[in-house]
């Protein structure tokens, strides 16, 4: 090849490479006809978006009643991307604005920055590195457009690495693991105490069973959300401090019952 043509080719390559390397996934076959103005139904998506459909089917949304394509993407092709990128789309089903998922996000640094600045962002941009200052729900939970498993720790760690340094990520993940480890100890203590009382002949009291369930289902979940979303309040007051409260209340109930039986 002669010099000018080679130069032109190299320039073209350098210009095109970024788009090739970091494009949004699953945009449908090139040259495919866009569907009509809509409103579209779920079935209209499958032909062009087979990959996303397959991974969706394998994930938690695939088996949920109301979580098909249009539930998050809406019925218009033009607005499908931005619609699904907004955290509001997820919050409606996942606990609402006052629910733990939304509140733990909104009380985190990510959430506050999003509150301050998100309306000014260009939501037509794909959810990849450097397009957004902080992540919305889908940025992490459907990282790289994966529609399947939404809570894999490995994937989440990759998402953090889009913006944060390896040391920072390592520190926070290690802290999170330690917190969960300690939470497991608290749960183990509560469970063991209840079982020991049962083994000692106590009638299982439904109230205590409920307290144990709440500790597992609600308080521990708050802690997980606090760690995942980096919300101080959900890690502490609704998380670990609340676990302390659950544990001591279970023990107090067991103590009281033991004393009543001994009367």
């Amino acid at each position, binding site marked *: 090849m002669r010099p000018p043509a080679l130069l032109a080719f190299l320039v073209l390559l350098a210009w095109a490479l970024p788009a090739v390397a970091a494009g949004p996934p699953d945009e449908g076959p090139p040259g495919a006809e866009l569907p009509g103005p809509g409103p579209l139904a779920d079935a209209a998506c499958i032909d062009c978006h087979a990959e996303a459909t397959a991974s969706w089917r394998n994930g938690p949304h695939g088996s949920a009643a109301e979580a098909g394509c249009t539930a998050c993407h809406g019925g218009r092709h033009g607005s499908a991307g*931005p619609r699904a990128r907004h955290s509001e789309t997820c919050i409606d089903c996942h606990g609402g604005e006052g629910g733990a998922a939304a509140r733990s996000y909104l009380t985190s640094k990510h959430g506050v920055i999003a509150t301050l600045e998100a309306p000014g962002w260009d939501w037509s941009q794909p959810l990849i590195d450097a397009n957004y200052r902080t992540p919305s729900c889908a940025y992490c939970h459907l990282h790289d457009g994966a529609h399947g498993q939404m809570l894999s720790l490995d994937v989440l760690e990759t998402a953090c690495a889009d913006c944060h340094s390896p040391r920072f990520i390592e520190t926070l993940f290690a802290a999170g693991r330690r917190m969960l480890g300690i939470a497991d100890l608290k749960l183990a203590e509560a469970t063991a105490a209840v079982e020991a009382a049962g083994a000692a002949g106590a009638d299982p009291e439904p109230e205590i069973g409920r307290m144990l369930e709440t500790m597992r289902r609600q308080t521990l979940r708050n802690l997980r959300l606090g760690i995942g979303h980096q919300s101080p309040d959900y890690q502490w007051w609704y998380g670990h401090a609340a676990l302390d409260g659950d544990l001591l209340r279970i023990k107090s109930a067991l103590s009281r019952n033991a004393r009543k039986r*001994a009367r």
Partner: protein
Amino acid sequence: MKLCYRLGAVLLLALGALFLVSIASAQPPVPHSLEGRDDCLACHQTGVVGAPRVAEDHTGRTNESCDQCHAPIGVESAGMPTIPHPVEGRETCLICHEAGVGGASKIPDDHEGRTDETCQRCHVEAGTTPVGEAPISLALPLIPHPTEGREACLTCHSGPPHPDDETYFASAHGQRYLAEGAEWDWSKPLVKGNYPVPTCAYCHMRNGRHQVADKAIWKFGIREVNPKTAENQVKRQRWLAVCADCHETAQARGWLEGLDRERKQTWAQLYQAEDVLRALRGDDLLHPQAGDRPPYPIDWWEEYLPLARVGFYEGQASAFYNVSRIERDYFEMWYFDSLAAYKGAAHGATEITDQAHRRLGRNLERLRREAAVLRELGRAEEESGHRVDPRPLWLRGPYTEYNRERN
């Protein structure tokens, strides 16, 4: 010229043209109303409150030239609000927007006579790409209230011990901020006359003072104070000066004294709870007693002289783990109910204060009932001469042992 050279030149020219076109259509649009914001550089030169900074190659350009390239969001002219909700299923706009039902913004007077069909000629659904136009980039708000850079305080000043955000937003000040704040000119300093209601920084960083607690009288709410000491009198005057920016001083004084009464009333109830606990402690009726559970790691002598701590001055702050339920209940009254009531009163969110007071009252009653149960069980144990040993349950366990080793 040889063919390959010609082809190379044409290719280079084509690339150059494409490059220029991509640059030309990439000027970010203006995602906010321009009203009252003629001075673009005031925010965009310095980057205050998250405003994107002007590009370096814009050096020397003045405010007058900005809008020659940067168009505001909206189809035809500046400031046309986009539709912040999906349009699907909501094609009859006037049903909500004529009367303003459900919080929908009312259509302005100059829209009289217009019908549902014409709305979307000018108002675009946020995030959509109208046919034939460059992509418009405005987002659905993450939470449905104005968000332009005024809520950094929330990161820390929220949550059960200090619901500052909740109480502020529930107050008349906060409600007005939520409704109108996005339209205010935030380039103006936080002084009298520039804002219809105060923000966090307006009151707590008066005249730009960064010592945010310089007027604090009530010590965060965690202990009772004498609000009329000489030092506090000075602070009270400074608070009244802030309120007097907008309110009659006599009215502000009334509110401040209302806060005094709220604190006095709340502390009276907390002291009643403390009395109940001290009586139980004195009669050795707490179960587990201080020596039956791991010592607090506060003081080295705790192991040899264990003491159940009651109230702020005895270090109540630590007493929410591994204590008896009644002690934890007191902690929550002191740290959650009282502090919520305090912040509600301080910010003017009377409903939150009332709710917190009712919770406090209910929890006090529950505390008394629990105390009665403890008395009854204690009496029965004394009569029988047999005391159930709490130590196996309270001194052992995976977490208790881990904690004792690590602390």
